[in-house]
C-alpha cells in the first residue's frame, strides 16, 4: 500500500524545499514529492494508494529528539522505552536518542543491546542509544567506545553528570573523534554547582534556595571548546542555558571550531522567576535562568549558534517530585510539549519555519550522523505532519509519557503534530 499525503506545505531544510506539494510513500520510503501528484498517482495505481488530505497542514521530515531520558532499564516507574516512544510520536518525534543514565548505566555492549532489543519489540519510534563516556559515568575510566559503537550507540555522553576530569575529557574527545562518534557534554563544573537548586540570582536570594551560578555551565563550555580546539576534534554542548555559553559557542564557531550545541524549550520559554511558588515541576538542571539568558538563547537560535532544540525529556514519578523542593528530582517531561513551545519561536519572529525544522530534525540528524532528517527520494519514510493553527491546552493527565512532571500543565498552545509517520507507517494520528 502506498501512502499519499496531499495538499500540505512541504518543508525540508535538507533540500531547501518549501513548497505546496504531495508526498508519496512507498515500501516505507519517500518515493517522491511533487505538486498535484494526486492527479496522476491514483489512476496509475488504482486502489493501491491511500490518500490523506492534509490541506492547511505542514509536512516535515520526522522530528528527532537528540536528548531524551527513557529511564529503561532500571527506572521503569518513571518511563519505559514503550511509554517514552509513545510520548515521542504524540509530540511529533519519529526518532529519539536516549541518554545512558539508566540503571545500570549504558556503559557496555550488553545494555546497548538490551535497549535495541526492547526498542525493536516495543518502540513506536526509532531509538538511538547514547553510550556512557566513562564506566558507570563515574568520570574516571573510559568505556569501550569501539565495542559500544559496534553494538549501536550513536554518541557518547555522561549526561546527568559532567566529566570533571579535563584529561579524561581530552582522551574521550580524541578517541571518539577517531571513531566518528560525537561526544555530548553535560557542562557543569561540580564545585561551582555546589549542590545548587535553582539559578543563582535575585530569585534564589529571596527564595533562600542555593544557587547554581551561570559560570558552573560556562566554565566547562569554555574548557570543552579549548579541548576540542587543541585536539582538533568536535564536541556537542547539551542543554545550553546561559548567555555566557551562547557567547562562547558563537565565538568558537566563528573561529571555525567543530562545536555544536542544543538548547531545550524550557530555556527559551521560562525564567527563574517562575520558581516563586516552590513548584518542583520547575526544578530542572541546568536550572531555568534569568531573562537576559532567555533572550540570549533566542538570539543564539536565530543566528545559528545553537544548532538544535532538544527536549532533555526527563520523566519522573510522583514520589520524585512531590517532596520538598530541595529533595525533588530535576527534570521536565518534555516530549509532548516541545513542538508546541518551539512553534512560538516562529510566531515571535525568532525562527522561520525551515529554520525551526532544521533545529528539530535536519541538524540533530547531522550531528548524530543519522540517515534521517530529510525527505529526499529514497530516504526513510519518517514524516511529521503539523497543524500550525490548532489550539490546545497542555494536560499532563493526557500525556502518554509516564512522567507527568511538566511546568506547562494548563498552558494554552497553538500548533502541534497531528500525524506521525515512522518508516511509512502511521504511528500517531491525532487528527
Amino acid at each position, binding site marked *: 500500500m502506498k501512502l499519499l499525503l496531499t495538499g500540505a506545505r512541504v518543508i525540508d531544510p535538507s533540500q531547501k524545499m518549501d513548497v505546496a506539494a504531495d508526498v508519496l510513500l512507498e515500501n516505507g520510503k519517500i518515493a517522491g514529492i511533487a505538486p498535484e501528484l494526486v492527479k496522476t498517482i491514483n489512476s496509475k495505481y488504482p486502489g493501491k494508494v491511500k490518500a490523506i488530505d492534509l490541506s492547511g497542514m505542514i509536512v516535515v521530515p520526522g522530528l528527532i529528539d537528540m536528548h531524551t531520558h527513557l529511564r529503561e532499564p532500571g527506572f521503569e516507574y518513571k518511563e519505559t522505552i514503550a511509554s517514552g516512544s509513545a510520548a515521542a510520536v504524540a509530540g511529533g518525534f519519529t526518532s529519539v536518542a536516549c541518554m545512558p543514565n539508566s540503571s545500570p548505566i549504558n556503559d557496555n555492549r550488553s545494555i546497548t543491546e538490551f535497549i535495541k532489543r526492547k526498542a525493536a519489540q516495543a518502540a513506536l519510534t526509532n531509538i538511538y542509544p547514547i553510550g556512557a563516556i566513562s564506566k558507570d559515568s563515574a568520570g574516571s575510566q573510559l568505556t569501550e567506545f569501539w565495542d559500544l559503537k559496534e553494538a549501536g550507540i550513536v554518541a557518547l555522553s555522561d549526561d546527568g553528570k559532567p566529566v570533571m576530569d579535563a584529561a579524561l575529557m581530552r582522551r574521550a574527545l580524541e578517541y571518539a573523534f577517531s571513531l566518528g562518534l560525537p561526544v555530548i557534554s553535560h557542562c557543569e563544573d561540580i564545585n561551582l554547582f555546589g549542590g545548587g537548586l535553582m539559578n543563582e540570582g535575585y530569585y*534564589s*536570594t529571596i527564595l533562600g*534556595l542555593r*544557587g547554581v551560578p551561570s559560570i558552573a555551565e560556562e566554565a566547562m563550555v569554555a574548557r570543552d571548546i579549548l579541548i576540542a580546539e587543541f585536539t582538533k576534534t568536535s564536541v556537542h554542548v547539551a542543554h545550553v542555558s546561559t548567555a555566557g555559553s551562547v557567547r562562547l559557542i558563537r565565538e568558537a564557531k566563528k573561529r571555525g571550531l567543530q562545536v555544536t550545541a542544543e538548547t531545550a524549550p524550557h530555556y527559551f520559554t521560562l525564567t527563574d522567576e517562575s520558581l516563586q511558588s*516552590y513548584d518542583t515541576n520547575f526544578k530542572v538542571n541546568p536550572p531555568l535562568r534569568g531573562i537576559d539568558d532567555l533572550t540570549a538563547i533566542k538570539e543564539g537560535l536565530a543566528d545559528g549558534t545553537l544548532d538544535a532544540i532538544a527536549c532533555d525529556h526527563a520523566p519522573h514519578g510522583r514520589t520524585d517530585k512531590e517532596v*520538598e*523542593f*530541595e529533595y525533588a528530582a530535576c527534570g521536565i517531561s518534555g516530549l509532548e510539549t516541545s513542538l508546541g513551545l518551539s512553534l512560538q519561536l516562529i510566531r515571535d519572529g525568532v525562527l522561520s519555519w525551515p529554520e525551526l525544522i532544521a533545529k528539530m530534525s535536519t541538524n540533530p540528524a547531522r550531528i548524530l550522523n543519522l540517515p534521517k532528517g530529510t525527505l529526499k527520494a529514497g530516504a526513510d519514510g519518517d514524516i511529521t505532519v503539523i497543524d500550525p493553527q490548532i489550539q490546545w491546552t497542555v494536560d499532563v493527565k493526557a500525556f502518554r509519557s509516564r512522567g507527568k512532571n511538566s511546568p506547562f500543565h494548563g498552558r494554552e498552545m497553538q500548533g502541534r503534530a497531528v500525524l506521525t509517520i515512522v518508516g511509512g507507517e502511521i504511528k500517531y494520528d491525532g487528527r
Partner: protein
Amino acid sequence: MKFEKKDILGIKELTVDEINLILETAESFLEISTREIKKVPTMRGKSVINLFYEASTRTRTSFEIAGKRLSADTINISASTSSVVKGETLIDTARNLEAMNPDVIVIRHSAAGAPHMLAKLLRQSIINAGDGAHEHPTQALLDMMTIKEKKGRIAGLKVAIVGDIMHSRVARSNIYGLSKMGAKVVLAGPATMLPRNIEQMGVVVHTNLEDAIIDADVVMMLRIQLERQNQSIFPSLREYSQHYCLNRTNIQLAKKDVIVMHPGPINRGVEISPDIADDPSCSVILDQVNNGVAVRMALLYLLTGGNE
C-alpha cells in the same frame, strides 16, 4: 480589621496593615504574661501542632507557651529530615496530621518552601517557624515589635543587619518587614555571605561592619553557623570575630541610644562581645524573647478568627 490570611508563610506576603494589626494584637497580649495566672480561655478546645524538622528549643518552646497561654492544646512533633530518605514523606505526615484535625500547624523545616507545600495541601492554617534560608516571619515580627517598643516607631530608623546574610532567614524576613514599615535597612557581612543581587531587595550593602552601623538606631547581629567554616564561606571564626563582632569600640559609631538585637542563640565573642550582650542599656535580647511569645499568641489568635 478582619485578618484574611489563611497562613503566615512569610513577611513578603503581609501588608503594612496586616503587620500593624499583628503587632497591636501582640502588644495587647503582652500584659497576660505579667499576670499571676498567665492564661486566657480564647483558644479553649482548639489545637496547635508544632511540627519541627529542625531542632529549636527556643522557637518551639515559644510557640508552645503561646498556645498554652491561650488555652489551646499544643502537641509537639519532632521529625527528622533523614526520614525523607526512607520512610514517611512530608506530604504523608501532613495528611496524617490533617486527619487529627488541628486548627493550626506550626512548621520548622530545613528545606525552603516546605511550609508553602503544606499550605497548598491542607485546609489548616500554617505558620512558618523558619524554612531553610527563606523566611522566619515570627522572628521578624517579634523584632519589629521590640524595635517599636523601644523606639516608639519603625519608620525612619536606620537598621543594620550584620553577619551571614546568605544563610539567614531572619535577615530576609526582617528586610521585607522593616522596609515595608519604612525603616532604612543596611546590611554588612563578608562578601561570601552576601547573596547575589540582594541589593534588589532595596537595601544598602557593605562588606564591613563599621560602614553599616554608622548612625544606626538598631543593630541586629545574626548568628554564625559554626560549621560554615568548613565550607570555605569564611576562613576562620577567629578572623570573623576580629572584624564582624560588635564591641565597645565599634558601637560608638552608632547612635548613642542604639539598641542591639540578636535572634539567638548567641555565640558570645563571635557576633557580640559579652559586655555588650549583657548591657541592659543597649541589649534588648531578652525583650525579644518575651515579645516572641506575644507575637506568636497574636498569630494563633488572628488565624483562628479570634478578632472576628
